[in-house]
């Protein structure tokens, strides 16, 4: 067991834990429990907002394999990862002020609340709640597995005990602290990622004898590693560009991102968050993936992509520093998990229970139910992650693309196009998700693009055409 690396890591977990408990205190005295627990009372300032968004974007990049894939593919994968810089400004500019005004008017606390008020349709609500629960639950389970593997490889304890430690620390602070605890810890974790990847990149460059010598080594090994086309020349411009949709602009439609876009205090915090977010996302993405590429000449022959970061950190830095820096990927995983957990629980409590099961539940009952369901979900994920069923792994592959295909038009057009109606929204959600899964199974990479691209375009057509066709019918009925 590597104690020198482990102590700083545990220290950081303890700090995060303390923040959760502290944030929970202010929750206990709160008068509007739901808004505080699931949305932090709409009080996020600029820095906090930028950091919590950045830390949550991290999930999109672990989705595309991050530094491990950069290690195998070379600079072409860094190029692909840089499509994420757009999320830093695009999401807040598009959802932006309109979303903030409208969700306040609707008094919406979740994405589903917004869709419910906008489309006034039970089916839209149920369908979106179900897609959130299924896709995000699987995404969450996959992240827990990753978190436990990281602890396992760092400490040498068994997978089950690692999973237990991970689950316990996440559960405690999410359950007691709610959204504010999640946002605060996201801010700590985002800062760790920012500083940690910067230090590690510098250490890697020094260990490799400077950038020029690293690039020369890469070129000698395989000239393709320094082209935009990937190690085997398989990364075509069309394929790489389609990631602008998947991890760039499409991120607008991820519920865990959208909910953050309604949590901020005022215009000024939004403006600050756009600037800070762009810089922080860009720096983290560039550093993290460059580390992956530059690690290759220093430590050749790593087989498992997820091990690149821990191994290179332990190689080029003193153990205690490696421990602090390795808190970064750990932080990334935790901050994804905590927001997903909270979101799935808010969907169950707020969107399903309060809408359709028991609309008049008392504040006290809702409070107990929220804590209970969050904890219960956590335990359920823990059991899943112990011996992950294949279905979960399969669903996780579709999680981000699926949510984007489902929600992008109902959200964006719902905000900016008055004529969009519930029929259009339903048609677009169903066609988006179904086409995405079908296309991925039977027709991967149509026209050389990622399989999410076409369904998103087709579901746009569905949204517009069906809305226009039913528009006449709706107004004829009036």
């Amino acid at each position, binding site marked *: 067991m590597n104690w020198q690396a482990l102590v700083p890591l545990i220290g950081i977990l303890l700090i995060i834990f303390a923040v959760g408990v502290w944030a929970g205190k202010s929750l206990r005295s709160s008068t509007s429990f739901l808004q505080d627990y699931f949305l932090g009372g709409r009080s996020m300032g600029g820095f906090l907002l930028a950091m919590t968004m950045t830390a949550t974007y991290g999930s999109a990049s672990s989705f595309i394999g991050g530094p491990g894939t950069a290690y195998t593919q070379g600079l072409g994968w860094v190029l692909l990862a840089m499509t994420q810089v757009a999320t830093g400004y*695009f999401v807040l*500019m598009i959802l932006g002020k309109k979303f903030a005004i409208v969700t306040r008017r609707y008094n919406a606390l979740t994405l589903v609340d917004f869709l419910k008020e906008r489309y006034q349709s039970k089916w839209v609500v149920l369908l979106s709640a179900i897609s959130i629960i299924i896709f995000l639950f699987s995404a969450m389970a996959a992240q827990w597995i990753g978190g436990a593997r990281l602890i396992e490889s760092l400490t040498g304890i068994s997978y089950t005990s690692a999973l237990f430690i991970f689950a316990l620390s996440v559960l405690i602070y999410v359950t007691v602290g709610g959204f504010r605890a999640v946002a605060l810890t996201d801010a700590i974790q985002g800062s760790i990622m920012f500083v940690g990847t910067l230090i590690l990149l510098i250490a890697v460059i020094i260990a490799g004898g400077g950038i020029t010598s690293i690039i020369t080594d890469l070129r000698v090994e395989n*000239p393709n590693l320094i082209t935009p086309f990937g190690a085997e020349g398989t990364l075509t411009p069309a394929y790489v560009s389609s990631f602008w949709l998947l991890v760039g602009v499409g991120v607008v439609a991820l519920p865990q991102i959208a909910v953050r876009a309604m949590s901020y205090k005022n215009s000024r915090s939004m403006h600050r968050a*756009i600037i800070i977010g762009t810089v922080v996302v860009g720096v983290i993405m560039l550093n993290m993936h460059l580390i992956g590429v530059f690690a290759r000449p220093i430590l050749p022959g790593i087989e498992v992509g997820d091990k690149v970061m821990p191994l290179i950190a332990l190689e080029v830095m003193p153990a205690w520093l490696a421990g602090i820096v390795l808190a970064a990927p750990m932080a990334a995983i935790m901050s994804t998990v905590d927001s997903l957990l909270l979101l799935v629980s808010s969907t169950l409590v707020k969107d399903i229970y309060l809408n359709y099961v028991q609309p008049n539940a008392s504040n006290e009952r809702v409070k107990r139910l929220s804590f209970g369901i969050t904890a219960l979900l956590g335990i359920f994920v823990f059991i899943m992650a112990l011996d992950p069923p294949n279905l979960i792994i399969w669903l996780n592959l579709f999680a981000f693309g699926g949510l984007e295909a489902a929600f992008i038009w109902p959200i964006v057009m719902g905000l900016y196009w008055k004529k969009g109606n519930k029929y259009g929204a339903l048609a677009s959600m169903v066609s988006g998700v179904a086409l995405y899964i079908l296309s991925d199974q039977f027709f991967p990479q149509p026209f050389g693009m990622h399989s999410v691209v076409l369904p998103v375009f087709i579901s746009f057509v569905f949204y517009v055409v069906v809305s226009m066709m039913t528009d006449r019918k709706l107004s004829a009925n009036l």
Partner: protein
Amino acid sequence: MREKEEQFKVAHREALIGVGLVIFNFIWWYGFAYGMGSKKPEEYTYVFGLPAWFFYSCVLGFIVMAILVTVVVKKFFVEIPFEEEPEK
């Protein structure tokens, strides 16, 4: 009600600015990456040790976007209230 319209006008304009920025960002990123990177690796030129396509597309491109976003937000984004007037 009129005030509401004004706020939405601001929100719509800023969303369009966001779309414009993304298009610019994409063209810059794509142009340098595939414009300069499609040569044979032997013919590459280097900036600070990095292949020129990568430096201009990913490193400089990011710096340009960060500056552009800062300028746009500071110059063109308007602070508006989100609440529906004094009810709270």
